């Protein structure tokens, strides 16, 4: 039973899972199919929920269990299901065409990870015990890579997914910096994420119907 009480062991688990989250984020930059993109997002959210549960266990922060459960419901189940149905209904088969090619994108994502670590250092307080040191660096990296992916994508749905992964970064930052926001705020954020996913999904569907494409670089009528 000892590992379940040992803080150091907890930190190792969190770091391991944070690393997986980061790897998935970079995989998202690199892959080419929308359905895979959605599943990677679901997997990433799953590991986030696990991180939240681990931190809840080792730091005795019970409200984080609720945040973890909500992540499982909203980001691991509902949002991916919604988007996969959308993809099926729109009959999208084409590949994602990033603006910057894949190898270069991965290099840039690596560079952004480095930036994330540098920024996270300024928050590091060695005197304070906690689990979140590496997790925070990963969170900031997720945020930055999410930004980059949004700029780098032309397809509407992939931009939405990038926005959601950016939000995943914020969630990770919240649980590693302050063990999550107060519960009611967390509820508000989850509600917003769910509604935003639905609203943006409908919008994507309408754009696809009107333009016969999700290529947002074709949205260029409004100028000046």
């Amino acid at each position: 039973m000892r590992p379940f009480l040992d803080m150091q062991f907890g930190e190792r688990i969190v770091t391991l899972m944070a690393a997986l989250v980061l790897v998935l984020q970079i995989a998202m930059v690199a892959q080419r199919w929308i359905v895979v993109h959605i599943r990677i997002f679901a997997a990433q959210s799953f590991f986030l929920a696990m991180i939240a549960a681990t931190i809840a266990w080792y730091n005795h922060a019970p409200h984080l269990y609720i945040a973890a459960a909500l992540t499982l419901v909203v980001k691991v189940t509902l949002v991916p299901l919604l988007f996969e149905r959308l993809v099926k209904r729109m009959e999208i088969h084409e590949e994602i065409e990033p603006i910057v090619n894949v190898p270069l994108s991965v290099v840039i994502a690596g560079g952004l990870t480095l930036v994330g670590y540098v920024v996270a250092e300024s928050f590091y307080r060695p005197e304070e015990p906690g689990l979140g040191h590496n997790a925070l660096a990963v969170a900031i990296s997720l945020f930055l890579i999410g930004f980059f992916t949004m700029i780098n994508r032309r397809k509407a749905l992939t931009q939405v997914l990038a926005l959601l992964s950016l939000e995943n970064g914020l969630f990770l930052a919240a649980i590693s910096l302050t063990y999550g926001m107060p519960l009611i705020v967390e509820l508000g954020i989850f509600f917003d994420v769910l509604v935003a996913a639905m609203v943006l999904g409908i919008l994507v569907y309408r754009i696809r119907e009107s333009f016969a494409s999700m290529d947002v670089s074709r949205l260029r009528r409004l100028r000046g």
Partner: protein
Amino acid sequence: MLLIALLLIPFATAAVSFFVRRRAAMEAANLIGFGIVFLAAVALAGQVLARGTVSLANGFFYADALSALVILLTAAVALVCSTYSIGYLRDDQQSGALGDDASGTEQLARMRTYYTLTPLLVFSMLFMAMANNLGVMWAAMEATTLASIFLVTFYGKVTSLEAAWKYAIIGGVGLSMALFGTLVAYYAGHRLPGSESLSGLNWSVLAQHAAQLDKTSMRLAFVLILLGYGTKAGLAPMHTWKPDAYSEAPVPTTAILSTALLNCALYGLVRFYILTSRCLGADFPGHLLLLFGLLSMGVSVPFVLVQKNYRRLLAYHTIDHSGIMATALGLGGAMGSLGLMLHMTFHTIAKSLLFLCAGNVYQHFGTDLFAKLKGSVLRAMPLTGVVFLMAMLAIIGMPPFSLFQSEFLILRAAFDGGHLLTGVLFVLFSTGVFTGAILHVGGMVLGPGGETAVAARRPWRDGSMLALAAALVVIGFWVPAPLFQLISNAARVVNGQ
């Protein structure tokens, strides 16, 4: 109790409009709902004047003079727009702009969208202005975006989809930065006693202990918040969604977005400005605000000068005014804060009036391009033409209108505070916008007219327009004493006393 009523009534209005299937019932629900909301907002303002602050549910809801002013302005705009939109949507229905199937189900569905989402938008704005918890405030802000996306796509045109997409994505990225900023602010206060509880993120608590907040974190938090809420306020360079969304949404929605929602975004910014300036001193947030404020003013000048579309012209005008208000906040001090609050009030009246006039012109001529209007507004629509010109003169700061006073106050704050460059740029950019606006709107209203018949009377729209116009004229000469008291109390909140 009032605070709860202010939230419940718009929500109930939305529910009623969603379930009734008749146009008249939806119109009545909106009208009555917003009427009560306005009365409640006035009552709240009275309470705040009498007691200082009003709070409820253990400080979860909290209203001081600043919140009360924002709530009052939001409720006023919502009420005027609800009367205006009755005439506006009926006209749209007749002209076939809402779809022209014979059974009318599509038209009714569109109207239901409008009459349901507008109260929800107002609900989230009011919630934002009275949420004490900064995280809840963020969630309400995000809800305003979500509620208004389908108002932007209301007409279902290809261009409205494009506008809504930009609005959703730029707004989404901006608000994610604001959430990060909120989070970092929470972290900055995490060593205060009681920070794990809900009230640890309450503005009133953080403001009391602002000096003990972690300084590095607050610095980062303010930058992120400025970028985040600045996007919603339309500060350059995050302003690009604004002209698109404003020219595609139905005009009453645009009037709400460009005044009440702008006020709410600035309100969020002001709350964090107060925390940051108490923690780090006013210089750091002030300089950043001046930078973004002047940039927004400067960016809007060329677009106002060469604009071809009058609804986009008004949108760039809003960007300019958003910049003016950010500048006023950046200047700070007693005079800058008072200038900001006065300007917020006056701008809300004048800009919503301008959009209502623009809506009248748009519906009559069916175009929003100057070139196709051929300057015949005054002849075709004498009343709208006169009011349009008057409101335009007011908004570019011509005396005797009230915006002259507030802009002059802000300018004085700049020179008195030794911000010489800010003052000079402020005058320069204002002159540019002034020229562009006079050039276009003057030409549009007064120019040689083609042969057009005089438009028929439109009681709902003209009535709302005249009510606002009367308010604009009166307030230029006489600000009612309680309103001025509320404004100066709000300025005192900003100034940190």
